[in-house]
């Protein structure tokens, strides 16, 4: 007991590393910090610093005022709109699917295959997803042609496939599985005894969801919705494969600035867009982490 707090004894037990502030222990973590410093922190610093600089290197806020231009504002409205709608839609549908899974056999084949499939599909963004939906409801797509030949033209006058509604629908394809993955643990934490307790006290199904399960699941549900939002907001590949360069979405504006000639005239604009994206995601993810912490209080 006396020895435990005595520095001399601690040092005796660890003669090589010692208890001093600067020790060889730090060397073990050095390669990691060198690597992330170079390939993660440096690029982040580049975009943050670059967003406040002009062509000749002086400090400015003009890059951010570039965001206020109408077509840029439009890009943000589109990106935020698609992210919000696909997050809320994905969260609701994903929660319903997760509930259908949870009420089944916990060790059953159905649950295991749905979880594995969700793992794959939640990652299935990108180019392939664009092709999948072109083959499905594109103007020569299987489902579109089938429905049309049976008298149902889902497009009518406007082909909304390449517009925000179409993009939202495509995003649901990875948002719903992600919701299943992240929301299922919370649903698993709901005990059947709570429902029985509600019923023994005379409560109906509505009472159970309104006063017991609902309030318990609300923080988790909200948190997962935020995660889905960040997920959709960061997505780029599907947009890039589906739409032309410079279309009205933030990632495509960044793409246009990085690949086009405009980079020379205002190099800080791409950085300013990137910083704005990062700030939005940081705020959303911080809220997500807070809600997640609240959920984990009763989850175990």
């Amino acid at each position, binding site marked *: 007991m006396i020895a435990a707090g005595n520095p001399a004894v601690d040092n005796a037990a660890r003669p090589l590393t010692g208890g001093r502030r600067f020790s060889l222990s730090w060397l073990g973590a050095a390669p990691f910090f060198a690597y992330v410093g170079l390939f993660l922190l440096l690029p982040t610093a580049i975009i943050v610093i670059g967003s406040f600089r002009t062509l000749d290197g002086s400090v400015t806020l003009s890059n951010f005022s570039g965001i206020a231009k109408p077509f840029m504002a439009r890009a943000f409205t589109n990106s935020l709109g698609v992210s919000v709608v696909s997050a809320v839609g994905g969260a609701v549908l994903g929660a319903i699917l997760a509930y259908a899974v949870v009420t089944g056999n916990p060790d059953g084949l159905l649950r295991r295959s749905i979880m594995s499939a969700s793992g794959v599909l939640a990652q299935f963004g*990108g180019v*392939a997803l664009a092709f999948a939906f072109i*083959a499905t409801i594109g103007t020569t797509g299987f*489902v579109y042609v089938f429905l049309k030949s049976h008298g149902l033209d889902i497009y009518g006058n406007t082909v909304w496939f390449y517009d925000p509604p179409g993009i939202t629908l495509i995003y649901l394809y990875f948002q*719903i599985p992600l919701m299943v993955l992240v929301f299922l643990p919370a649903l698993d934490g709901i005990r059947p005894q709570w429902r029985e307790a509600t019923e023994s006290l005379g409560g109906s199904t509505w009472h159970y969801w309104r006063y017991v399960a609902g309030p318990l699941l609300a923080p988790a549900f909200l948190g997962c919705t935020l995660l889905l939002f960040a997920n959709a907001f960061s997505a780029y590949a599907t947009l890039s494969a589906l739409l032309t360069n410079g279309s009205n979405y933030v990632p495509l504006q960044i793409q246009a600035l990085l690949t086009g000639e405009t980079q020379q005239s205002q190099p800080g604009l791409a950085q300013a867009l*990137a910083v704005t994206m990062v700030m939005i995601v940081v705020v959303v993810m911080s809220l997500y982490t807070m809600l997640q912490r609240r959920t984990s209080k009763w989850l175990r």
Partner: protein
Amino acid sequence: MNRSQRLKLGIFRVVVLLLMGAFFLMPIGAMLEFSTRGNEVTSPRTLDAWVRIAQTPGLVKGIYTSLELAVITSLGMLALLLPTMVWVRLRLPRISRIVEFICLLPLTVPAIALVVGLKPLYIWVNINITPSVLALAFAYLVLVLPYSYRALDAGLAAIDLKTLSEAARSLGAGWGTVMLRIIIPNMPSAILNASLLSVALVLGEYTVANLLNFQNLQVEIAYVGLTDANTSTAVAVGALLLAFVLLMVLALVGGRLQQQHYVPGQRA
């Protein structure tokens, strides 16, 4: 729950699973259908598009490139992350929060934003280190950090790292031996998990490669899609089905490996 409630729940589950099943299987089916179309509306089903995968040099090269990148990234991730995480747990627990924060950081910096900062860095890398497409592995290692960190962290939490390493060290083992012969064999499923997540991410990566002007599999798929959508769709659905098989294997193998974890006080 009484009988009518049970019945209602049963109907609810069947309806939800059928509708969701349709939504998720339809695009995959449509891709298979699309990739087997002939040139004319009336022409019979054909596997030409699938055959053309092997005849399109860009695609073949893209597949090789992405596979190489996947292997390099996975090995690099294990070499960089695992020793650091073990070391931090044993010797520097007070910085474990910082390491976790850094590893999860890529989740809050979208790839499309990070690539803006990587661009000038890669101009330097291309000139001074290597112009090869494999240089992408540097960036990919950063992108896989959050997923690998979580997988490895779960694995390390499940074993009694301190006891194992101290026992090995007191028997005269060096740190290399501790890593290779004690720690790694005790967490096979976590290592497999972290590696497969990295492989999956690298094989599907498009953002960084495209914007840094490198040709990996996804960039080639998008490029070929401009002229020959059938072949692109064939590759895309092939890659997706391959990912399914890989993850199913992981789920099966992972379940078996999980039981081999070293649990203190429990005998095999």
